């Protein structure tokens, strides 16, 4: 794992990737700082980070697009499979390298509140709580990006899908106000989701029986619950969209709440997507 981490870091710092990513992140944080802390003279640094959250939805897919897809395109994944290291070590090594690239600009950013505190009253706990949450949110987005990169051998496609998914996730809270809040609408949405899941299961396993069984069981479960307890579906779709938003949870940190469930949520997302990335790489051996 150390070898992978070292190799990845070297390649990020030999190419422009790490510098471009760091520079863009710093530019946007800088613009935010200029607008809120300097021009508007607000002492809360956490607002800057909330303003920059959208930037992550664009920058992270660009950072992560090639991490696994490029190995597949160049067929260097064959080397990784034949080396005496397992796929988990490969994925975790690559992930840690990405985290390091992400941490470097954040380390610079974390000096800002200290600088401001010399010129006025800055409530440091909420500023640093937000920086910590910003790091966790980025870590979760990077894990999602790694997974998307593991699905294709085309890095452009990985970036495009990554941005689409992350932007949808970013706006899902606002969008949830416009989707149907009735029980019936939620059921329809759930059924569409079940069908999508069936399609994913089928493309991953190429097993009609398994996909069919999964679909039938889930559809029956949805319909069963619908007839037993209609109220459970009231407002379900908007609630789901809000609950799954990675960006929404960041808001409570900005409001000065250290939300432990959000921390657990981010860590769960990281573990889940890294696990799925390992599975996607392993699956290439079992096709």
């Amino acid at each position: 794992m150390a070898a992978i981490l070292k190799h990845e870091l070297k390649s990020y710092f030999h190419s422009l990737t790490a510098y471009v990513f760091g520079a863009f992140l710093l530019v946007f944080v800088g613009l935010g700082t200029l607008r809120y802390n300097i021009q508007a003279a607000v002492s809360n640094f956490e607002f800057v980070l909330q303003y920059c959250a959208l930037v992550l939805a664009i920058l992270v897919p660009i950072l992560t697009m090639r991490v696994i897809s490029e190995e597949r395109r160049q067929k260097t994944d064959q080397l990784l499979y034949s080396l005496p290291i397992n796929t988990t070590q490969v994925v975790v090594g690559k992930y840690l390298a990405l985290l390091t690239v992400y941490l470097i600009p954040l380390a610079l950013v974390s000096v800002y509140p200290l600088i401001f505190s010399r010129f006025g009253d800055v409530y440091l706990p909420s500023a640093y709580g937000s920086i910590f949450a910003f790091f966790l949110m980025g870590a979760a987005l990077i894990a999602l990006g790694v997974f998307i990169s593991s699905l294709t051998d085309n890095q452009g496609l990985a970036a495009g899908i990554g941005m689409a998914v992350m932007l949808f996730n970013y706006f899902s809270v606002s969008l949830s106000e416009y989707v149907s809040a009735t029980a019936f609408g939620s059921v329809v949405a759930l059924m569409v989701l079940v069908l999508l899941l069936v399609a994913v299961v089928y493309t991953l396993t190429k097993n009609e029986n398994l996909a069919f069984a999964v679909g039938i069981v889930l559809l029956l479960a949805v319909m069963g619950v619908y007839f037993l307890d209609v109220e459970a579906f009231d407002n379900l779709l908007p609630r789901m969209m809000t609950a799954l938003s990675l960006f929404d949870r960041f808001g409570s940190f900005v409001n000065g709440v250290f939300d432990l469930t959000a921390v657990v949520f981010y860590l769960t997302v990281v573990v889940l997507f890294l696990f799925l990335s390992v599975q996607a790489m392993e699956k290439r051996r079992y096709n």
Partner: protein
Amino acid sequence: MIEVEHLTKKYGDVTAVSDLSFTIEPGQIYGFLGPNGAGKSTTMNIMTGCLSATEGHVRIDGYDIFEEPDKAKRLIGYLPEQPPLYLNETPLEYLRFVGEAKGLRGGALNEQLQEVLRQTGIDGVKHRRIGDLSKGYRQRVGIAQALLGNPQMIILDEPTVGLDPLQIIEIRDLIKELGKTHTVIFSSHILSEVQAICDKVLIISKGHLAAFDTPENLERHMTSQEIILTADAPQDRAVDPLTKVEWIQLLELTEPEPGLTRARLKAEGEDLKEALRALFFAFAEEKIALLELTVEKASLEKIFIELTEFAEKEEQSYGGDPET
């Protein structure tokens, strides 16, 4: 030592490798021969843990490649068909990464790096970008990668494909050199290459093992030898002495020039010399001069075609689809 037992690999409905079993003994060079799409790369990918098997086992020195991959993979070095190179790196950076991933550190790593750079002859280009190197040099970097960690066995998948004749000779010499200290398995669809370097040949066709022997034994056993003779007489006269000789079977009679007869014969029984002697005296008795009397050894090429065609016919006679 590599033991392959009842290896089967299916891609959906297509069977790429079917019930393959063989044992690779240490200290020899093995050639893996087969037409394109015969399942060579699939077999090699499974042997090195890059691909799962549908059924069967691969054991490297007793370690199962699927159950104890860490121990098994340390014993083999693998160069896939397309060398897995990071084109933006220099050979030295690339090899350092592979060495570290194989668990080498510090002095041991530097020592081995020097050793493989020297062995594969890429010391002069170690600071150039791999993407700028010629195909022959890239192949060498790929082989150097396989050599790191000093594995007992080296598996090379079509190492000479796409190289110019000079590069091919260089890579062949390198393989011969490696064969002195390692067990080498390499695949090829070029027969002369296998004949020139290998101690043993595995012929694989349609996912089946068609033959596994030394090149000499294959030549000796697989097909009987043919005798070609040209007699200074028209056909009606030349047939007489031919019918008197017992150990031969007439395959073909032609008339290369008016008044000459050329016969292609198959020698039956073990003693070829006896047949030749009998032929000579039979013609001498009839006062017909023999202008040519040669023995044609079946080349590995012929054996190869015979074996692979045989497998194909057999499959067809079982009602199998000739396309698969």
